[in-house]
């Protein structure tokens, strides 16, 4: 069964079209990554799945229910908004019980305590939210999202601004949700996270779907057109190598995107003649690279505006 089925939805705000003819199927029990530049329609799509706003046209089914219209709040869904989402003046324990209550869970205290321990937040239940650091607040927000054991969990940028330790705690919790049978949809700007965690990746750009599928299937579309190279010293003009379209310089190594017709072996020989090669790899493009290929020019345009 599909957790979410979206059939060619459109949504406009005034004259801007936020989501344009979007279709999507999220299988139950998987982790689905939403990627896309800022302002491309991610949050709008998530809000439509949550029934906070409604599409102008098209249909949405969530967990088997028609979610196209109406504002029936769904207790089977958990939602973590991008940043914040907690009453600053309340005690942590009270906020969590309040959110659980809103989802119809009574007497959530033991469950709250269990989760606080699980997320390495012992003893904060009696502290005020405003005394929490960003990472702690994010973990508390996550607990609020999952306390009622939702079947579908929607996380908007759950990992932004977390240090590696907290990141790991939260990642394990998300993976545990999946193991327990929940479906997880999360949006992220961190392509490494998407690549490592998601069963499926969905990219939206200017309101339209541009990528959708398993990571392997997506990479397959692009083929092995990337060379990862590390050399001693520097000063090699990679641009001058035959068949190199674009150079991504990461400092310690470089990624070269080559023409489909170019011969990696020929490039290797040319390179060997010019520098001392420490690493040479024919690879599929990273998700990061694919993202930049699609959104790069537009993202740069936006920055110049």
């Amino acid at each position: 069964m599909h957790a979410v089925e979206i059939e060619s939805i459109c949504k406009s705000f005034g004259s801007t079209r936020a989501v344009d003819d979007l279709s999507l199927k999220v299988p139950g029990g998987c982790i689905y990554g939403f990627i896309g530049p800022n302002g491309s329609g991610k949050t709008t799509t998530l809000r439509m799945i949550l029934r906070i706003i409604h599409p102008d046209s098209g249909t949405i089914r969530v967990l088997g229910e028609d979610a196209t219209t109406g504002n029936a709040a769904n207790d089977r869904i958990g939602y973590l908004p991008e940043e914040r989402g907690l009453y600053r003046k309340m005690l942590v324990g009270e906020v969590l019980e309040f959110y659980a209550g809103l989802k119809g869970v009574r007497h959530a205290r033991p469950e709250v305590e269990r989760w606080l321990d699980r997320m390495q937040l012992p003893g904060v239940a009696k502290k005020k939210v405003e005394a929490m650091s960003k990472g702690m607040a994010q973990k508390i927000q996550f607990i609020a999202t999952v306390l009622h054991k939702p079947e579908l969990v929607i996380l908007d940028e759950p990992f932004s601004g977390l240090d590696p330790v907290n990141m790991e705690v939260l990642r394990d919790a998300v993976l545990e949700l999946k193991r327990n049978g929940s479906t997880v949809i999360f949006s992220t700007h961190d392509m490494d996270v998407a690549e490592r965690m998601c069963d499926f990746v969905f990219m939206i750009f200017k309101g339209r779907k541009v990528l959708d599928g398993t990571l392997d299937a997506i990479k397959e579309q692009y083929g092995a057109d990337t060379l990862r190279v590390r050399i001693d010293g520097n000063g090699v003009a990679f641009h001058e190598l035959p068949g190199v379209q674009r150079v991504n310089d990461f400092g310690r190594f470089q990624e070269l995107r080559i023409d489909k017709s170019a011969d990696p072996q020929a490039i290797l020989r040319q390179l060997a003649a010019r520098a001392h090669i420490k690493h040479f790899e024919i690879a599929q493009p990273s998700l990061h690279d694919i993202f930049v290929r699609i959104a790069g020019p537009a993202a740069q345009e936006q920055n110049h505006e």
Partner: protein
Amino acid sequence: MSKLWVVAMREYRSTVRTKAFVVAIILVPVFMFGGIGVTALTKGRIDNAPKKIAVLDRSGRAYDFLVEAAAIRNERIKDDTGKLTDSPFEFENIEVEEARLDAIRLELSDRIRKNTLFAFIEIAPEVIDAGDPSVAVPPIRYYSNQPTYDSITRWLSSVVNDKVRSARLAAAGIDPALVDRAMVPVSVDNLGLLERTASGDVKQAERVNPMLVFMVPFGILMLMWMALMLTTQPILSGVIEEKMQKISEVLLGSVRPFELMLGKLVGFAGVAITLIGIYLIGGYAVANYYGKADIIPMHLVGWFMMFMALAIFMYGALFLAAGACCNELREAQNLVMPIWLLLLIPMFSVGTVLQYPSSNFAVGLSLFPPATPLVMMVRMSMAPGVPLWQVGIGAIGTILTTLLFVWASGRVFRVGLLMQGKPPKPTEIIKWVFQG
């Protein structure tokens, strides 16, 4: 439905537990009754050191009677135990040399600056024997460097006027004692109406207690006003916080917008009723202690609670809608201005209503729904009371208006909560109401 209660309980608890609420509960009685306490506390702590005053008596006839009158006053200001409750006056006669008046005035001024003298007064010759109406009476001159201390000037004015009046009457051959008798004022007794009792006797009208007649309606007005003030502010800042902190997104993922709004209103109506309950019980206890429990109009409590709750719903809904349209409190201040004006109408006109509770104006205003809760309650707490049909129309009108406001605000609330960027224009808000 149960979610509505979850929201209402949270709003109720978090508001009742704020410092502002607790402070208000304590502070208001302090302001209302504190004045009396402060006066009692500072009594006896005022400056009652003798005031030394020089008299430059150019008439040559004033000094003696001033000393005489001051002696009487200095006796009168002593309380039962002989303790002073005010400063006694001590006079010093200054020799008058008409040729060097300015020099004398300057010397006296310097003594005041050096604190060896408190003030000096100068009495022109014409002051005492001013019998001729064509001659302008020159004022008594009072010189000091403490112009706010007015005990001396007030006392002087009355003493000298008495003296001058007697002198003038005597000059005209009239006995001043006769004038005093003729001038005794007649008082007016303010009474209620006579009634016929069950046994057929005539029950005499009771004397109206002027304090009580105004205190009860005024107290009712202040209570309701205070409850509105204390709830609208958290309503507004609460919505804005939820919007800024993205809490509203989480809420809307769990609760229907209308449910959310109603939950908040129920919570705040609860806050207002709690507040009023505390004052009512407190007020009753105090009144009972003094054996005056019957001044609290218990038969109005039910109506009061109903109108109070309606007022909270009516105005709370508007404040919620305004808050939902804004991203910060500062922006909201402009939007809530018209709501405040609506709220202030009854406050501004309450003086007229208190004086003429059955005038067309008062009746009309009490049937104008935004003003009904406050004005109707004020009228109901005063004689001659309000006919039941007026209360009925007022209540129905208020309920309908409240429903309309809640419905319209609900639509604005829903759109506004998810909107980012600058606040909408009033025309846009009205559009949201009709388009939803």
